[in-house]
């Protein structure tokens, strides 16, 4: 009847599902050291190519190469390695606590440690992160007290958030760590607003916003980019592309044919795509974007390419939706091992020191956990009185009445 064939509806599918072999052949990975490093005041339109490639520093053999390789940062690299290792050890310990029924819920960042750790090391005191639930590295890299973190996870008497938040949704203004929302994406525009405020106030502080690949689909991603585009505030917009959003792969967020970094083009925002499992690349690109922002050259969006090795959370079983061995096949490797290899090659580190450090961190965290558990687990020690505090600055009479009704 019609000269046109019936239309078809297509839904993108990941390259592999449970039972298939893992397949990452669709991910193009340029050799380390091959991507140029533009000046920090470059105009966004001049670096569009940098959103479609991948900035990498650490070569497979451990050498640091190319224009993004920084020198004279040995101490920083050692700190980075330690922070990544501590983050990983922390995650492992917390999983154990969850299995022991001491907390209801936990979320690991295994395989993604380089991103938060490296970025935090590039920030300055007073700068503000607007994180998601997978940036524990931001706190751990700056010596936030592990006991406090665990008290929050256990929702106990010493929980800095007084039992009000789900485990892992930390908040610490002092550590430049904005209160994590359980609602995805909302913080991205907060980061932009905070950065606008810094500029309005003639300050020199910058904001760093965080979002997952899946959450870029949320509308707040757009409001953040539109406002960043219009006012050019000092903000770094980090997209952590770990390939998965619970059970849906990056293609369900429209990140299959175009990269997430390319989203920035239409907004005249500088953007870079980076190997997120390469701590040296993370440090160098973070430095670049932070300096660009702080010098008044405006926002940068960074796509950090990585892989969510862990289940989404302790409530998730990824073997239901992706090949079990997918994470082993992940072509960018393990960020801890890659940095270790570099440092060992340069004799700044050794296998023995690595094992020692592992033991040391395990110990440190076990001690912190023990200390924290003394104040209760699974909500023990939280006070019903706290239920009514902080709804407002001053408790209005009707809330006082409700508290009385509860008898606390």
């Amino acid at each position: 009847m019609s000269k046109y064939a019936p239309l078809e509806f297509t839904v993108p599918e990941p390259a592999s599902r449970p039972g298939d072999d893992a397949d990452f052949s669709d991910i193009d990975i340029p050799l380390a050291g091959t991507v140029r490093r533009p000046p920090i005041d470059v105009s966004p339109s001049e670096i569009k190519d940098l959103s479609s490639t991948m900035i990498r520093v650490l070569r497979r053999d451990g050498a640091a190469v190319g224009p993004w390789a920084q020198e004279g940062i040995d101490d920083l690299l050692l700190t980075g390695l330690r922070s990544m290792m501590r983050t990983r050890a922390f995650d492992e310990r917390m999983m154990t606590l969850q299995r022991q029924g001491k907390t209801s819920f936990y979320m690991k960042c295994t395989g993604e440690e380089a991103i938060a750790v490296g970025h935090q090391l590039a920030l300055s005191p007073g700068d503000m992160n607007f994180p998601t639930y997978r940036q524990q590295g931001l706190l751990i890299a700056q010596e936030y007290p592990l006991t406090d973190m665990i008290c929050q996870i256990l929702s106990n008497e010493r929980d800095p958030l007084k039992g009000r938040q789900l485990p892992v949704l930390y908040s610490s203004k002092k550590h430049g760590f904005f209160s994590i929302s359980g609602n995805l994406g909302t913080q991205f525009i907060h980061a932009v607003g905070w950065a606008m405020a810094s500029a309005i106030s003639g300050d020199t502080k910058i904001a760093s916003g965080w979002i997952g690949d899946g959450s870029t689909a949320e509308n707040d991603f757009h409001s953040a980019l539109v406002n960043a585009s219009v006012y050019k505030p000092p903000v770094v917009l980090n997209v952590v592309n770990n390939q998965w959003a619970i059970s849906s792969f990056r293609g369900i967020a429209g990140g299959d044919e175009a990269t997430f970094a390319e989203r920035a083009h239409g907004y005249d925002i500088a953007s870079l795509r980076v190997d997120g499992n390469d701590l040296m690349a993370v440090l160098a690109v973070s430095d670049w974007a932070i300096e660009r922002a702080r010098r008044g050259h405006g926002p940068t969006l960074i796509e950090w390419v990585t892989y969510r090795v862990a289940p989404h959370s302790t409530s998730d079983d990824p073997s239901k939706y992706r090949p079990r061995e997918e994470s082993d096949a992940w072509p960018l490797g393990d960020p801890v091992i890659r940095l270790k290899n570099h440092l060992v090659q340069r004799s700044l580190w050794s296998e023995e020191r690595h094992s020692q450090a592992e033991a040391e961190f395990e110990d440190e965290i076990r001690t912190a956990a023990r200390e924290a558990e003394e104040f209760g687990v699974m909500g023990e020690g939280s006070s019903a009185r706290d239920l009514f505090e902080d709804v407002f600055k001053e408790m209005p009479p009707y809330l006082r009445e409700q508290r009385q009704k509860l008898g606390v």
Partner: protein
Amino acid sequence: MNMVEAIRDAMDIKLADDKNVVVFGEDVGFFGGVFRCTQGLQEKYGTSRVFDSPINESGIVGAGIGMAAYGLRPCVEIQFADYIYPAYDQIVSEAARLRYRSAGDFTAPITIRSPVGGGIFGGQTHSQSPEALFTHVSGLKTIIPSNPRDAKGLLISAIEDDDPVVFFEPKRLYNGPFDGHHERPASNWTKHPLGDVPDGHYTVPIGKASVFRPGRDLTILTYGTMVYVAEAAVNETGVDGEIIDLRTLLPLDIEAITASVQKTGRCMVLHEATLTSGFGAELCARVQETCFYHLEVPVERVTGWDTPYPHAQEWDYFPGPTRVGNALKAMMETV
């Protein structure tokens, strides 16, 4: 059958008998939903009928409205009711208004399913009960079933309804009736008569309450999880409460409510949502309008407090059987 299975069964039946029904939302396709409500449906009906959506609640509802305007009957899932707010504008300004503003030219027969309520230690963003934010919106119907049998029949009605329906599923009831005694072992639906779900197609009418438990002393107006909390409190206090399970909040079954309260002369309103401007306020207002001269004591609201839903203090927030029981006794003592 538990409530998850009942809900899945309803979608399964509608997918099978109406090619215009489509089901989508975050993680609902291959994976079958974080609460497993759509498990197996994609395999059965294909990716054109059951599929994953981007993480964009506004887009889920917005695309659903467009599909509905085309002639489909989308049944979409918002993963938690706490995440429905990004879609609020599409629901209020678009789905609810389309028939009216186009004088019936375009309509939006979309069903928006979403788990509500607490009791799963989920903190403030996995526990909310936002039903009152929808009952204020003209053009929407709001349903909250309390058991598998109603859930299936009401969900079929919702999908077949020619207007937009917000369908809230009390997540604490997915696996079993829950009476608020969180310290006791959980019960499950297999042992409960309302877990006995008829096969095949049937409907439970939208807008009709059910008398969950007849009684003479006092009427308890409630819905969702709180039905079982009311039941526990009645059993524990010996107050012979008539428990009305509203099932549909809008349109409200005012006849059933009035009949009961005029009989008992006392009325408690019970919900998990925060007190102020909760749906309980509307119930109070209606009851005193229709039963003023029958009321022996003021209508009493027992609800969540006017705070966000806390994590560790969940059971201090939750209006459990003790709090309900005490209120019941107090209401019976008042002259």
